[in-house]
């Protein structure tokens, strides 16, 4: 099962490689990884998507917590959450397909961020399922290049 972990860690040299080294060294997999500074510049937030049964994810969480540079580990998938990923896609856009590409982008509420005589570069944001859908639709038209950020996620605020 897919789990999205949010890891707060000290913004120190080598801290990120302690996390990634833990995954490779113990044979856990990382599907995506996103990391940047938080409001406190001494702390980074890392969003990590991994797969495994409950025992594996429990072990991953504990092992992460054991790292001295790690402040907090949350399995976001345990509760309600919002997730977003951004993708930049360079898609073929020649005379006969330019209009169709624009229509598709519009449906997905994407933006064109670069234009050339034969292609558009488009920006699309959304949960993983939406990113997958837009890729599936654009693929037959001709995707030249694709860059994904990986997922970031945040728990929803309590309802009360």
């Amino acid at each position, binding site marked *: 099962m897919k789990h999205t972990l949010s890891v707060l860690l000290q913004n120190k*040299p080598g801290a990120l490689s302690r996390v990634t080294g833990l995954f490779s060294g113990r044979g856990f997999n990382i599907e995506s990884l996103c990391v940047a500074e938080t409001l406190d510049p001494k702390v980074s937030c890392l969003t990590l998507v991994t797969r495994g049964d409950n025992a594996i994810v429990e072990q991953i969480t*504990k092992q992460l917590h*054991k790292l001295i540079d790690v402040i907090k580990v949350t399995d976001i998938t345990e509760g309600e959450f919002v997730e977003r990923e951004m993708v930049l896609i360079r898609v073929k856009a020649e005379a006969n397909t330019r209009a169709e590409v624009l229509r598709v982008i519009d449906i997905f509420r994407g933006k064109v961020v670069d234009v050339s005589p034969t292609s558009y570069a488009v920006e699309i944001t959304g949960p993983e399922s939406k990113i997958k859908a837009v890729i599936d639709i654009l693929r037959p038209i001709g995707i030249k290049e694709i860059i994904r950020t990986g997922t970031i996620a945040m728990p929803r605020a309590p309802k009360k």
Partner: protein
Amino acid sequence: MSEPNNRKDYPMSKITGSQAIIKCLQEEGIDTIFGFPGGAVIDLYDELMDSDIRHILVRHEQGAVHAADGYARATGKVGVALLTSGPGATNGVTGIATAYLDSIPLVVLTGQVPRALIGNDAFQEVDIVGITRPCTKHNYLVKDPAELVSTIREAFYLAASGRPGPVLIDLPKDVVASMMPFPEKKPIKMQTYQPNLEPHPGQIEKACKAFLKAKRPVLYIGGGVILSNANKELTELAEKMATPVTMTLMGLGGFPGTNPLSLGMLGMHGSYASNMAVAKSDLLIAVGARFDDRVTGRLDAFAPHAEIIHIDIDPTSISKNVEVDIPIVADCKHALLAMNGWLDDSKAFDAGAVADKHQPWLDQVKEWDDKHPLTYREEGDIIKPQYVIEVLNKLTGGDAIITTEVGQNQMWAAQFYKFNHPRRLLTSGGLGTMGYGLPAAIGAKLAFPDATVIDVAGDGSIQMNIQELATARQWGAPVKVAILNNNYLGMVRQWQELFYNKRYSATVMEITPDFVELARAYGAVGLRAKTKDEVEPVIKEALATDNLVIMDFAISREEGVFPMVPAGKATTEMLLV
């Protein structure tokens, strides 16, 4: 005329990095360190000359780390090694990994090229922080001189607290040479590291109730009992609850080996009674042990009928390999104290009733032990390695500090020496490092000059760090090395005999030095026993001399270690003598 109220603002109060490091070591009560000099640490070595810290010059950096490790295991204090950059640091890595796998507190100081050269492939530069990241509890590269002192203090705190382990500090040469303040030491508080020592009272209650309900309980104890100095509390609990105790290799000595409740070691080369007791138990109480594959054998057949209580300070150890019913995250000593206290206060606990209830179980365990005790076959005059260990045990009153190399020698020592006290068996359990025993013995002997320290070795593994004989001689560490010599890499040979059709690929030591002559070359005493009769006189002579001794025992060449659970089998599927 005002007094300066903040002296560290004055240049006068600054000291060099070398001075600061030595002051930090003194602050931690370190009187002995192990190391090998080089260009990147030459400033620190210069300063060491004027300090009262004893520096033990080894012959290879692996020896320095193992010796510091032996010192730490024997004393319970943090061991310190000092290595130069590049090859000095990489030579230490096996020692660091050895300490990491067995949770031994070490602080390893490595020199590094000056900051401006880091990343330039400079002479003797290596990214030792990167290399040791997965085999240290934590490590540091000190880039800011102002952080040197706090880093060293934090390193000592991390090494010794919680689940102990090695911590490495990489010290760029120019950082060590620069001037810095030496602030007063304050209690260390880390936002991201707060080991949980105290057990949850609710879990203690659950554990005690399960214990009182059990009919066939077994205590399964590991190195955590020794690391937390919980042997007394453990013994109290075992006796109070009339419960048999089995030990991992790392747990030997955590409970007296001659106590009637002791089953000896469990697992791959454990006693028949241990493995049967665990397999038939209805409650397994794991204390400071981590369900290693050498202990559990095939996982689904390990303690299949037992409810499992697991006391461990490291949450990652709990339910890692075997699902635990009652986890207790705490220091072993604190948890055992709490269990003893709960039972003492409980109306449900009646020592006599418990002893009566457990008697059939203890009888059953005794029956297993009588049926298949740890034993070996005599073969006339031929020296049996187990016999050598028995004589060592007899002549030292079971009271020596025994270090081992790795392989058959290690297992025979574990099986046939009766460890009645903690910190008397120093062995590389987790990593299984050949070459550990001699330098570790030197470390232990330097910590306890009056103790008898014996390295039980094989002819293969002794050669992996044999250069440390010179260290032992130079620093007055007259340890005794007992080589169980079969001209084989015996443990691998045993596997080849049993599982590879006796195809002895690369396990025959065709050339082995004459260890008696070798001892003489190092200025030590060399003794040899070729027949059974000669064993006792040789050991007596070795123990009587003040000098470093190598004893070379020509043992039965194809002796195996039994019982043996073949890898991947259930622990009840033992091959017996």
